């Protein structure tokens, strides 16, 4: 009887708990709290937080090679399949009309990607700090946080720096959730009251044919110039085609609902399973969190600055605020633009105009990810 009792005791969590595990479960709990109480990207941060708790339970080995989360990670993240399926769903949920009506907002989506590359330099510069060590691949994976696009960040990190995946994903989604707090001060600081009051002309109507041709246009350019971004952009545009052609509603609904919902649960849990003490509780994570915040700020700033340039070049027709939406974080960033615009003029709704740079930012970060994959991952 004694031996059974002993075996039972040996199997208990309180007999095996390590400090690191306890801390990581606490981190998981905080993520869940932020998701539930503060509504910080709950669809992702809740499963990630729960995954962090499950994977740090001593003895159970849920994130181990024979555990549920271990299998899910192996099947869905290591292969890159899950983020691509999310991208298909995002494509099937996204209306590119605003961008098609105003293609030049693509420049705003381009400018906001500067946050990515500035952060890349910053990460490499942190190598001068003793104890921090980032390879070029690590730095690239961290920099993509500045793209403000969760699936792209997870996809790139799973290719270039799997060890940092947990921290990068948490940083990416956290900052995306913080967009309403991070962006407004920067937007106000860089624009004048008069600029923020600019009323933009109504968007032209977009025909169904244009909406169908658009994804093919993007895909063809991607094939010609940046095939390394083809998995991401290809699946995004495949989802969008399912939505726009109007003859495959069954498939479009499956991509918009069943597939993206199911994959989101498992993607979140699997990402959370990478929040283990030995990978997360390091000095590098601090660097990632800091760099991520910087990336967001720089991206917002360069987006707004490009907005100011377009404001001038267009003779005052463009409200520079919409540049801030170029970081992606769809549709939160566009809503923030709308809100800041309304503060300046209570009748000025910029939401639709901000959707253009907002979806352009998704394409922009996928292009940036493609460049990083082509050069660093090649």
């Amino acid at each position: 009887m004694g031996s059974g009792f002993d075996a039972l005791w040996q199997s208990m969590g309180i007999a095996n708990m390590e400090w690191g595990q306890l801390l990581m479960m606490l981190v998981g709990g905080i993520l869940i709290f932020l998701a539930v109480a503060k509504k910080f990207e709950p669809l992702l941060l809740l499963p990630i937080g729960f995954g962090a708790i499950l994977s740090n339970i001593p003895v159970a080995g849920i994130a181990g090679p024979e555990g549920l989360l271990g299998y899910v990670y192996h099947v869905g993240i290591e292969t890159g399949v899950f983020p691509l399926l999310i991208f298909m769903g995002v494509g099937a949920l996204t209306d590119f009309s605003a961008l098609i009506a105003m293609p030049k907002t693509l420049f705003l989506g381009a400018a906001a990607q500067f946050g990515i590359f500035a952060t890349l330099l910053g990460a490499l510069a942190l190598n001068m700090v003793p104890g921090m060590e980032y390879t070029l691949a690590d730095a690239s994976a961290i920099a993509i946080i500045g793209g403000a696009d969760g699936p792209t960040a997870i996809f790139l990190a799973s290719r270039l720096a799997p060890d940092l995946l947990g921290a990068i994903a948490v940083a990416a989604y956290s900052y995306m959730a913080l967009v309403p707090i991070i962006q407004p001060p920067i937007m106000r600081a860089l624009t004048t009251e008069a600029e923020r009051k600019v009323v933009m002309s109504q968007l032209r109507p977009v025909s169904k044919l244009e909406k169908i041709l658009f994804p093919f246009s993007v895909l063809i350019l991607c094939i010609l110039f940046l095939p390394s971004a083809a998995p991401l952009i290809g699946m995004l545009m495949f989802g969008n085609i399912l939505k726009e052609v109007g003859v495959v509603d069954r498939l479009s609904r499956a991509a918009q609902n069943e597939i993206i919902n199911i994959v989101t649960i498992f993607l979140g849990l699997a990402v959370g399973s990478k929040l283990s003490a030995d990978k997360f509780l390091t000095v590098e994570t601090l660097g990632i969190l800091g760099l991520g915040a910087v990336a967001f700020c720089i991206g917002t700033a360069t987006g707004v600055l490009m907005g100011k340039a377009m404001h001038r070049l267009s003779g005052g027709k463009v409200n520079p605020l919409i540049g801030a939406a170029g970081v992606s974080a769809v549709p939160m960033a566009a809503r923030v633009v709308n809100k800041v615009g309304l503060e300046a003029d209570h009748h000025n709704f910029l939401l639709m105009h901000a959707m253009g740079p907002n979806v352009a930012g998704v394409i922009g970060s996928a292009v940036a990810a493609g460049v990083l994959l082509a050069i660093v991952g090649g």
Partner: protein
Amino acid sequence: MSVTDLLLEGVNLMFLGMGMVFVFLTILVIAMNGMSRLARAITGPEVHETPSKPVAAPKATGEEGELVAVISAAISRFRSNKK
């Protein structure tokens, strides 16, 4: 690799990356303009849709109008059921 070398690589990557992003999106702007012109050439100028999401539900212009619609729907369904 020394930190300096890494930073040089990083600067290199930054120029290449931002360059590529801008070149790609510039070509896309051009392609989209061409595409829109092509679309207009095919469909003619008349077939258009608003860029907002196509909402199926008829908008309530007045509650009374809605009520008329609802009741006449009810009656027509009732009649077809009665047959």
